[in-house]
C-alpha cells in the first residue's frame, strides 16, 4: 500500500469560523495506481492535494493521519516535510503554466530546485535530458526562458521537474485543465507512461474532466462537500455508479451518439452546502432525489464491493 489517508480533517481559518474543507477523508492508494479525483468546484479536491504536500498559512490540520509506504507523513511539521518533498511526494501545481520564474532560464531553475533538495544537478543531468525527450521536448529548452515556450511545453517541463527525483506519489492538480484537447491528451499519455516506466509509483489526478479520468485513471474518487462520496475502479464509477451524487454527476455528461431530441442533459439542481457550518448528516441530502430520514445521520464510507467504496445509506443494501 503506497498511501493511506485516514479521517483527514483540514480546515481553513477565517474570521467567521473554520471552513471545513476536508472533513474526514479516508482512502487508500495502491502501488502503481492512478486515481482520478473528481467533484465540483469547492468540494476539497485541491485542498486534499495540497494537504498531502504542504499546508499553507491558512490551512489547519485538525485530525487524521497520512501514511506513505508505512511511515507517517509529518504534514504539520514544515521542516520535517522538506526531505519528503520531490523525493517522496511531488506536486504538479494547478498553475503549472505560470510556475516558472520569467527571469530564469529553465535549466538554471531546475538546477536550483535540485540543489535545494540536496541533489547535485550533474548527477541527474542525463536523466533530465532523457525525460524531456520522452515527453517530446528538445533538451534545448533548458537554455530558454519560460516566455519562449508554449503553454503545453511549460506544462511538460513542470511535469518533468516534478517527477525528476522519482517520487512515490505525484499529485497532479488540474494539470491538463488549461490545455487544448490534443495537448491534454499528450500530457495525460505521458503521465501514464511515467507511471508505467516507474518514474512515479502512484498518482492522484485532480480534475473536473471525467472523460479524461476515464481514459487514464485506474480508480476514481468522487468528493462532495469535503467528504468522499464514492471511490472505485474507473469503469465501475462511470458505468455503474452507486452513490446518487456520482449518478447525477455522470448523468450530467453528454454521451457520444445521443441527440438532444431524445433527452435533455440533466444537471444537478441546487448548490453544494457552505462549508463554514456544514449541515449535519449526509451532506448531499438537500439535493438528493432519494433522501429520507435516515440521511440525517452521517453515512459511513463502506466497501460495497471489492475496492468499491461509497458513503450512502441507500447503497449498503
Amino acid at each position, binding site marked *: 500500500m503506497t498511501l493511506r489517508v485516514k479521517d483527514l480533517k483540514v480546515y481553513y481559518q477565517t474570521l467567521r469560523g473554520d471552513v471545513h474543507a476536508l472533513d474526514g477523508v479516508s482512502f487508500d492508494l495502491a502501488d502503481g495506481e492512478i486515481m482520478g479525483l473528481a467533484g465540483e468546484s469547492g468540494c476539497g479536491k485541491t485542498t486534499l492535494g495540497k494537504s498531502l*504536500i*504542504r499546508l499553507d*498559512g491558512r490551512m489547519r490540520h485538525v485530525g487524521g493521519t497520512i501514511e506513505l509506504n508505512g511511515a507517517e507523513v509529518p504534514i504539520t511539521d514544515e521542516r520535517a*516535510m*522538506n526531505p519528503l*518533498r*520531490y523525493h517522496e511526494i511531488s*506536486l504538479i*501545481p494547478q*498553475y503549472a503554466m*505560470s*510556475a*516558472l*520564474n*520569467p*527571469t*530564469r*532560464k529553465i535549466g538554471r531553475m531546475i538546477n*536550483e*530546485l535540485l540543489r*535545494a*533538495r540536496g541533489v547535485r544537478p550533474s548527477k541527474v543531468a542525463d536523466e533530465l*535530458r532523457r525525460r524531456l*525527450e*520522452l*515527453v*517530446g*521536448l*528538445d*533538451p*534545448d529548452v*533548458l*537554455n*530558454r*526562458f519560460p516566455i519562449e515556450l*508554449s503553454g*503545453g*511545453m511549460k506544462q511538460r517541463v513542470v511535469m518533468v521537474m516534478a517527477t525528476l527525483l522519482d517520487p512515490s506519489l505525484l499529485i497532479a492538480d488540474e494539470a491538463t485543465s488549461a490545455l487544448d484537447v490534443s495537448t491534454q491528451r499528450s500530457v495525460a499519455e505521458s503521465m501514464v507512461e511515467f507511471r508505467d516506466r516507474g518514474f512515479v509509483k502512484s498518482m492522484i489526478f485532480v480534475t473536473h474532466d471525467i472523460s479524461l479520468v476515464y481514459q487514464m485513471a485506474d480508480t476514481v474518487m468522487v468528493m462532495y462537500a469535503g467528504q468522499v462520496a464514492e471511490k472505485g475502479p474507473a469503469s465501475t464509477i462511470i458505468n455503474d455508479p452507486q452513490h446518487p451524487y456520482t449518478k447525477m454527476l455522470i448523468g450530467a455528461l453528454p454521451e457520444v451518439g445521443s441527440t438532444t431530441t431524445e433527452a435533455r442533459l440533466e444537471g444537478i439542481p441546487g448548490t453544494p452546502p457552505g462549508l463554514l457550518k456544514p449541515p449535519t448528516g449526509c451532506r448531499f441530502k438537500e439535493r438528493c432525489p432519494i433522501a429520507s430520514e435516515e440521511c440525517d445521520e452521517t453515512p459511513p464510507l463502506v466497501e460495497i464491493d471489492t475496492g468499491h467504496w461509497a458513503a450512502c445509506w441507500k447503497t449498503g443494501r
Partner: protein
Amino acid sequence: MSNVAGAPGADAATPAEPVAERGRSEILHFAGRNPKLLIGAGVVLTLLLTGLIGPLFVDHGPNEYIGPKNQPPSGEYWLGTTSFGQDIWAQFVYGLRSTFMIGALGGGIAFLLGTTIGFLAGYKGGIVDEILNLITNVVLVLPTLVVLIVAVSYLQVEGLLVQGLFIGLTSWPWAARAVRSQALTLANRDYVDLARLSGRRTWRIITSEIAPNMSSYLMMSFILLFGGAILIAAGLDFIGLGPAGGVSLGLMLESSMQWSALQLGLWWWFIPPGAGITAIVGSMYILNVGLDEVFNPKLREL
C-alpha cells in the same frame, strides 16, 4: 511542437550563447539609442572621473592658502581663488570626490536597509510585516532634517563616514515601503509558491525569485537614494554641520556665503559647487528615467 521525441544527436550545449547574447544586445541596442540614458550617464561619468582623477594632478591641499586673493579664473588657477587665496579648482575636484562618496555611502546604507526591510516585510507578511511596517512608519514621520541637525551637532561629527551613516540611517523608509509593496505582489506569484513548496530558504527565494523580477525598480531606488543622500549632505554642509576641516561641494557653498562671495561678485566661488551638485543629481535623475525606458519593454520606443 517542433521537437520529436527521442531525436538523436540533440546537442544542447551550443544554443546557450545566442540566447544570452540576444538578450544582452537587445538591451545595448535600446541603451545606445536612448538620449536620456546617454546624456545622464555621460555627465555623471565625466564628473565622477573628474573627482577621481582630478585630485591626482593637484599638488597642494584643497584648503591651503597658496595664491593671490580673489583671483578670477585664469590659466594658473582654472576656477580662480577664494578671498583667502585657496585654489577653487582643487576644492572642486576634492569636493566632487567626497560628494560621490557621501552619495555611495549614504545611499548605499539606505538602500541596503530599505530593501532588506522591504523584502522581509513584503515576503514574510503577518507579524513580521506589522513590526517592520511600524518601524518604517515611525522613521518615516521623524522630522529627519531636525534629527540630523541635532544628532550631527551634538555628536561633533568629523568626517564623511559618520555623516554618510547618519544619512543612510534616516533616509531608508520610503525605499522600504516601495520595495515592500512590490515584494508583496511578487510574493504571491505562482513560481514563488512553487519555490516555497520545494523547501528553499527564505533568503534564496527573495534573491533568486523575487529580486530579479524587480531589478529595474531596485536600480531606480538606489539612484534616487544616491541623489537624495547628496542633497541632504549638501544641505547639512551648507548650514555648517559638515565635516570640519574637510572639503565638499556643500562646504564650498557655505564658506562662499559666509564670506559674502555673492555680494562681492566672486561668482567663480559659488557657481562651480552649485552647478556641480545640480549636475550630479539632475543627470542622475535623467539617467534613471533613461534606464527605466531601456529595461521596461513597455516604455521602449522603437
